[in-house]
């Protein structure tokens, strides 16, 4: 057997073993997913949105510098300046958090 035939056989056997290992991994994943992993079905956008997504940009095969333009256009918060009332529970938690932060800062001074 010459060197090239030996190499071909080695590559072929390697491919077979790789395929065997890959299928084994796949089967183990399927079995663990079936028996041990529960509740992986999630609610989708349709469950919470009365209307479909309104697309503002929908371009295929864009050049590599597109990301810069995309983020330049949508990088600003479109809802900036909208004022909202905040529920009391959330305000109470923010107050508690700021007191705890202040306490931590004060403690740092003494340690």
């Amino acid at each position, binding site marked *: 057997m010459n060197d090239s035939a030996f190499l071909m056989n080695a590559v072929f056997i390697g*491919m*077979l073993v*790789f*395929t*065997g*290992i*890959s*299928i*084994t*991994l*796949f*089967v*183990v*994943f399927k*079995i*663990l*997913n079936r*028996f*041990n*992993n*529960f*509740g*992986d079905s*999630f*609610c*989708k*956008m349709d*469950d*919470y*949105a*009365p*209307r*479909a*997504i309104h*697309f*503002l*940009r*929908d*371009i*295929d*095969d*864009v050049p590599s510098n*597109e*990301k810069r333009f*995309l*983020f330049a*256009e*949508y*990088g600003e918060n*479109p*809802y900036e300046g*909208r004022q*909202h009332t*905040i*529920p009391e*529970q*959330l305000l109470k*938690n*923010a107050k508690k*958090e700021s007191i705890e932060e202040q306490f931590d800062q004060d403690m740092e001074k003494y340690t």
Partner: protein
Amino acid sequence: MAVLCSNCAGKLIFNPATQRLECATCGSSFRPEDVEDKNAELHSKYYDTRVYVCSHCGAEVITSDTEASSFCVYCGNPAIVFDRISKEYKPDGLIPFQVTKEEAIKNIKARFHRNPMVPKEIMGKCVPENIRGIYVPYWVINADYTEADYLSGEVKRGKSTVTKYYSRAGEITVKNVPIDGSKILSDDISRKLEPFYLEDSKTFDEDYLNGFYSNTSDMTYFDLKKSAAYRCHKMFADEIVKTVKAKNVKIQDSIYWVDIYDDPVYMMFPVWFFTFKYNDKPYTILVNGQSGKVAGTMPWQKNRVIALAVTTFVLVMTVIVLSILGVINNELLFASVAPYVLAGISLLGTYSFTRGIAGLRRIYKNLRLTQSEDIFKYVKKRQG
């Protein structure tokens, strides 16, 4: 504040099966809305709770007077101490437990049935003492959401595959999205419990809490916005990926903004927590207390998984080798099909490898989330 039976002054416990408050002493039962609160004016905004703190994971567990806490429902540690009696803001509403403890146990046990991978000793741990019902705080929000995504995908160009890039941006209005209001519970775990059906929700009445634990929302408005943006991003990204006609589509980068309307509704949703230890690690499996859906990842017996892998490998190799030997023995057939066989094997191998590795990584990630200690670390890391 404990609600007492008007006939015998015994403590009343809410029974999910009958949706009534039942007295364990004299057997009387009442509809929660019929039980009179003698201090209604005083309790209009607040309700009384007993707060326990877990010295292991830092979680706060809240009970009504009728239940004393003996271990942390989040991490299963018994190092839980009574901290204080507290007045808490009343939530706007709640969904009462509809799945009983027995039904929750049945649903979990159904997952063990003919399951060769789950260690047998865990089945023995699925007993009423290890299962606790807890009302988890949620914020139900309506919001406007905008996202811009830069994506990549692979397309065939002749015989080769090339990577293309895509640009998407869109806006959407979402309604009644539940955002878990507890920092201790990972959003990735709570998302698995959905859906909760708001049609069954009731105006908050602390009588429904009797016999269960509860927790109050410990997040700030900033945390709520962050969680809402993350929740919407997960759903939006799933939809955006579908609009790209390519293989192996990935979101390379994205930017998103959320604006929550004025009326986030503070709710409590029912969840059963099954906490157990296996190999000295704590695990928590959750059951939706309204629908009975089970969420979490059970640990597996390593020796069984290794045996399964070895058997599968031997079987697969036997089938492949026998098929190839059959083709090689027929020289004419071998010459004509050999390139296709090689191409087929390499394609099958690559496909199985990528799917298998991605799937196993996902299961390991889910298992780490189920290990309660990691739930805590994960949440702390993500929520800063």
